[in-house]
């Protein structure tokens, strides 16, 4: 067991996988000096062929990841911020997500595209998107959004070692807590949600950086007599539908917390899956706590006004748990 924050845990994963397989290569703008610290030291260890700064040319870089992967390399492409994936969007959406099927399975794309993402840092709309809903809709991509250092490490290793293209979004630099990391070759499987807190009255599915406010809300709710179960899907594609449904069948209530904009968000999709497959177990409306359909504003108070926090989650819980509250209150 070692203790790590998110970024060093990611750095460890990169070291381990590059050490393990010399077909793993990494490229991106300023990955050598590493602004976030996640790619730090790799250039020195693995040399200029395998770790490489690039020009600011996101469109060709995403295409190159496709091309190099089709020729047997395991490509890690660091895109810095989620928004810059839009600049390289064409090759992701039209090539990476499609070419395996289109060639009848002739090609494999072991490509991991990583980036920091999300709001709450006053860096304004062009650096703050949570772009995973777009990638979830593209059909041929795995989408990974871990929250804890251990899961970040284990899932990044799984992404790099796997044979499918993966969008790996790190909620880094946003006050991620220290976490324990299992020793050894720590791999976390795709498509298996993690339960961060067990509960019987309400399921809160929280994505990435939203786990923290969800746990905070759960604590507050517990004081009010509501035991919330907090689940992090970890990977949005593949999505652990069964895991979410199992929990909702137990609790009968669901809130999905997502820092993406509301329309066609991961929250919408998870809500829809439950409204279809666990309808009979639902005792109350399915709530979404998300960012409204706006560009994220710069000023801290503005950003806070649209960004999900524990209070928003508690309010959503209040809206769907009135009976529960009454019951518990009487039992005091």
């Amino acid at each position: 067991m070692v203790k790590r924050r998110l970024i060093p845990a990611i750095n460890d994963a990169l070291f381990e996988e590059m050490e393990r397989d010399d077909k793993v290569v990494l490229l991106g703008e300023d990955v050598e000096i590493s602004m976030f610290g996640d790619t730090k030291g790799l250039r020195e260890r693995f040399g200029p062929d395998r770790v490489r700064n690039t020009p600011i040319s996101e469109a060709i870089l995403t295409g190159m990841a496709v091309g190099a992967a089709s020729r047997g390399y395991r490509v890690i492409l660091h895109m810095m911020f989620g928004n810059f994936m839009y600049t390289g969007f064409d090759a992701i959406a039209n090539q990476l997500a499609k070419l395996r099927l289109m060639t009848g399975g002739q090609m494999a794309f072991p490509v991991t595209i990583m980036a920091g993402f999300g709001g709450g840092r006053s860096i304004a709309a062009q650096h703050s998107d949570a772009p995973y809903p777009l990638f979830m809709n593209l059909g041929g991509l795995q989408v990974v959004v871990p929250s804890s250092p251990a899961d970040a490490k284990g899932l990044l290793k799984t992404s790099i070692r796997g044979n499918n293209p993966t969008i790996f979004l790190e909620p880094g630099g946003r006050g991620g807590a220290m976490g324990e990391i299992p020793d050894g070759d720590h791999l976390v499987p795709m498509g298996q949600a993690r339960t961060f807190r067990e509960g019987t009255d309400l399921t809160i599915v929280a994505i990435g950086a939203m786990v923290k406010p969800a746990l905070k809300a759960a604590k507050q709710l517990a004081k009010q007599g509501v035991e919330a179960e907090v689940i992090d899907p970890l990977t949005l594609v593949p999505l652990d539908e069964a895991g979410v449904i199992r929990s909702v069948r137990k609790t009968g209530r669901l809130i999905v917390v997502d820092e993406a904009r509301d329309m066609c968000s991961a929250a919408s999709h998870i809500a829809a899956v439950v409204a279809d497959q666990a309808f009979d177990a639902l005792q109350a409306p399915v709530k979404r706590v998300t960012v409204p359909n706006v560009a994220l504003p710069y000023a801290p108070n503005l950003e806070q006004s649209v960004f999900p926090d524990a209070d928003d989650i508690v309010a959503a819980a209040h809206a769907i748990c009135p009976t529960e509250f009454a019951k518990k209150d009487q039992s005091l």
Partner: protein
Amino acid sequence: MSLVNEQAVPDPTTLMQMYERMLLIRKSEEKLGELFAAGELPGGVHLYIGQEASGVGVCTHLNDSDAITSTHRGHGHYLAKGGELRAMIAEIYGKADGVCGGMGGSMHVADVSKGILGANGIVGGGFGIAAGAAWAARLDNEGAVAVCFIGDGAANQGTFMEALNIATLWKLPLVIVCENNGWSEYSATETVTAGELGDRARAFKIPVYDVDGNDVVAVWRAAGTAISRARSGDGPSFIETRTYRLRGHTEAEVHFLSEDYRTEAEIAKWSKRDPLDFARQQLRDAGVTDDTIAAAEDRVAEQVTRDAEAAATGDAADPGDVARHMFHQENC
């Protein structure tokens, strides 16, 4: 700057092989044109007729470990690089034994085992894939190269410049072959393209060749120089092959265009410069007899008939393959 060896001449066997390959493209595509007109093909086809010397002159220098990327007008490149005819026609029919299992169709024929990374429905989609393949070849360090075929229209995608920049910086074994056929769909090149395309490449101080794309020997010469330079680790080159498509942009255009976009005179002029006539004359000049030429023509005619018939009789594509091929099944 490395100059083409003006003296270089292909030996008669090579010349004969090139002629036969060009003829195979011509006859196959005439067949596809017929099949399309007869309503036998599900999708549309963009024919390469008139441009055969370009693909063949280049691909004659390549072997299966070299990669090519192609365009929406990709049958010619596929066949020039050694792709199997029957499997291509079967693909266009949408058959299970099509080269992509019926998943891709005409605009996406690919045979990865032969280094054919695929035709592509996205204009400019090949830049990144080819640059990535060239990067992989450079890392492999076994002398393989990547050739990126594009049309003149594609040279207006910014990824052209991005590819030139990174290929120059990283000395990638990349040869970009721009088949300038004077049209970008229904826009004459000069109405959408400023300056000379070669100058865009010259800005990177790499070798630039401007050749008669209907003269297979001229193409073969320039490509030979560029490809051996790439193999030796000296970096990218750019070749512009001046040619013309003798058919419509897409065979379907007769149904949806209400006006002509090019003159009869222009088509007639280029018909007189048919690359097959050129090559036939070169064969005669090299002392190849008319009988030998006629025998090749018979062989090709027979193959086209046989393969087209075989392709038509295959089983329909298998719907189960869609889910099967979407993701790689072994995933870490």
